[in-house]
């Protein structure tokens, strides 16, 4: 796996590169702002880009804008946003732009090194990875009279894990359930939310994310 890194804090940038290299990941370059990242990717497109959101010169959403452009110009390159804040809005913008190989994680997640590296691989492979915090705030928009209110606690739990990008079997392991039970719950969730059924894990997750990111206005 080949990775490009954009992060303005030298401490985190160097640490991240050391971490990736130490686990056999090839780092094509590490830069400190969005424009340099775009140039770096244009020169040598990696499998995935890990980018901070808030970077010079404006310290607002430079990383997000660079990510959107990279996704447009190099659709095959995965983009993982790596931020200190879980902003639903950024996640939504990213999902609107692409539903293949995008991710949004809090920087905190790097403490669990293996899971973090696995997330990077997922995004590189074209999957969607969202931080639990982001998923929680997407789900937090649940209203008493909305369709999410019809879900049971267990179903919500499964929905949350799905939204984070976990496969059925991973959800089964995390909740100590049999894959069959998970499958049954998921069918029920899709029925209640009136989402199209699909057997493909990834497509199913996307349907849920679209639904949540859209603020489920269509279903209400």
């Amino acid at each position, binding site marked *: 796996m080949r990775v490009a890194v954009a992060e303005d804090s030298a401490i*985190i940038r160097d*640490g991240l590169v050391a971490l990736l290299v130490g686990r056999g990941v090839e780092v094509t370059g590490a830069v400190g702002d969005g424009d340099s990242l775009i140039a770096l990717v244009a020169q040598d497109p990696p499998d995935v880009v890990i980018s901070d959101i*808030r970077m010079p010169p404006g310290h607002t959403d430079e990383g997000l804008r660079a990510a959107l452009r990279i996704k447009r110009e190099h659709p095959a390159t995965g983009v993982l946003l790596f931020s*200190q804040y879980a902003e639903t809005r950024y996640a939504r913008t990213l999902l609107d732009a692409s539903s293949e190989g995008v991710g949004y994680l809090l920087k905190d997640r790097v403490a669990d*090194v*293996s899971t973090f590296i696995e997330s990077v691989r997922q995004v590189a492979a074209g999957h969607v990875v969202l931080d639990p915090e982001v998923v929680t705030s997407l789900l937090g928009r649940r209203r008493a009279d909305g369709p999410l209110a019809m879900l049971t606690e267990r179903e919500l739990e499964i929905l949350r894990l799905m939204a984070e990008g976990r496969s059925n079997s991973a959800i089964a392991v995390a909740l100590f359930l049999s894959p069959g039970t998970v499958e049954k719950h998921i069918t029920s969730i899709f029925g209640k939310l009136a989402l199209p059924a699909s057997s493909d894990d990834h497509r199913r997750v996307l349907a849920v994310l679209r639904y949540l990111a859209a603020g489920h206005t269509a279903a209400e």
Partner: protein
Amino acid sequence: MSRTSTAPAGPRPPLATALFARRTWKEFAFIWTALPVAMLELTYLSFAFLLGLLAALSYVGISIAEAFATGSRKLGTLSIRLARRQLGLEIADPPSSVTHASDADWSTRMRDLATSRTIGFPLLHLPLAVLSWSGSTIVLALGAGLSTEWLVQLVGPGQVQIFGYVADTPLMHVVFTVSGVLILLFVWPAVNRGLAGFHGNVIARMLGRTPAEERIMELTDSRRAAVTDADATLRRIERDLHDGTQARLVGLAMSLGDAHERLARGDDPATVVALVESARTAATSTLAELRDLAKGIHPPVLDAGLEAALASVAAGSPVPVELDCRIEGRPSAVVETIAYFSVLELLGNVVKHSGAGRAEVAVVQRGDRLVVTVADDGRGGAHVGFRDESGSGTGLAGLTGRARSVDGSLTVESPDGGPTRVTIDLPMVVA
């Protein structure tokens, strides 16, 4: 109630020469100019009122009324300028509309219109202008007529009648002439002055700002300064936390996570030592950073009083600082904080920019004010800048904002070549 006008400036000319004083004639010119201005104002008002009545029947009524109100405000400025130039009165421009039409709701706009003193001013101004114009002119004409009566009688045919009296004896001629001269020398200048002064003061009262309005403007300014300062401080703290503390903690978590996995995997502990060491360094530097950050919000040393806090700042300064602190009571905490951070930043400037060999800090209580002075013998050239400039002077602008947030002020004396003296005047107590 005192208004923002003062008595005409300058010494009073001696009575006997008042007739020939430039000021007397300026006042007379004022009275004459004010009359057509007042006529214009009333004409405008009547016209505006009629059109406004017509327009009120339609939806655009209030906008038209507002346009007229703006017009009468502008017209009012004419009277103010006249009084300023001719009478030397200090009158501030009329307060601008409390609201901005574009962002106020309908009822606010109505109230704003209704309370505008400028609008009704012409109703009072015209009678007043007629009074002062006729009063002054009649007395002047009387004086001129009486004093020249004899002369007129000598050169021309016929008789001069004044109030039905005709001078037909030499004694009467003398009485007429003497009283005419007396009127010209003593009565008219006084009447003229009195009328012009009264007229000018009415203009000041009706159109100028009241002390309450002045205060509102000051408070609006100081509130803006306080809000801007608080916002800038919060942003700075967020940036410090985001770029410093949070970044270091992410690095720390990263090192520890890495170390944990390596140990769990059974890697050689020797390879993990470096990771743990970098985690330890990150933890220590994060602590130091947090301590600085907390100190930047409220330095604990300030709890022991301003003098103690400043002494510790002075002791830590690379440029020798002489501290002179003379405070009897204890200022409000917010004043102490502002004084402390201002001195800290000013001494920082001394070290960074002035090239000074020594600095003096004086904190002196004068009544209910606290006056803080920071002076150095450096190269000078300090100035209060604004945010959109190159950045030079923005520190001083920030300090000015802080001082103003509590009704204080900051003055900079810093000629090129030095020395520099910055004085901050703060209230002792902020309620």
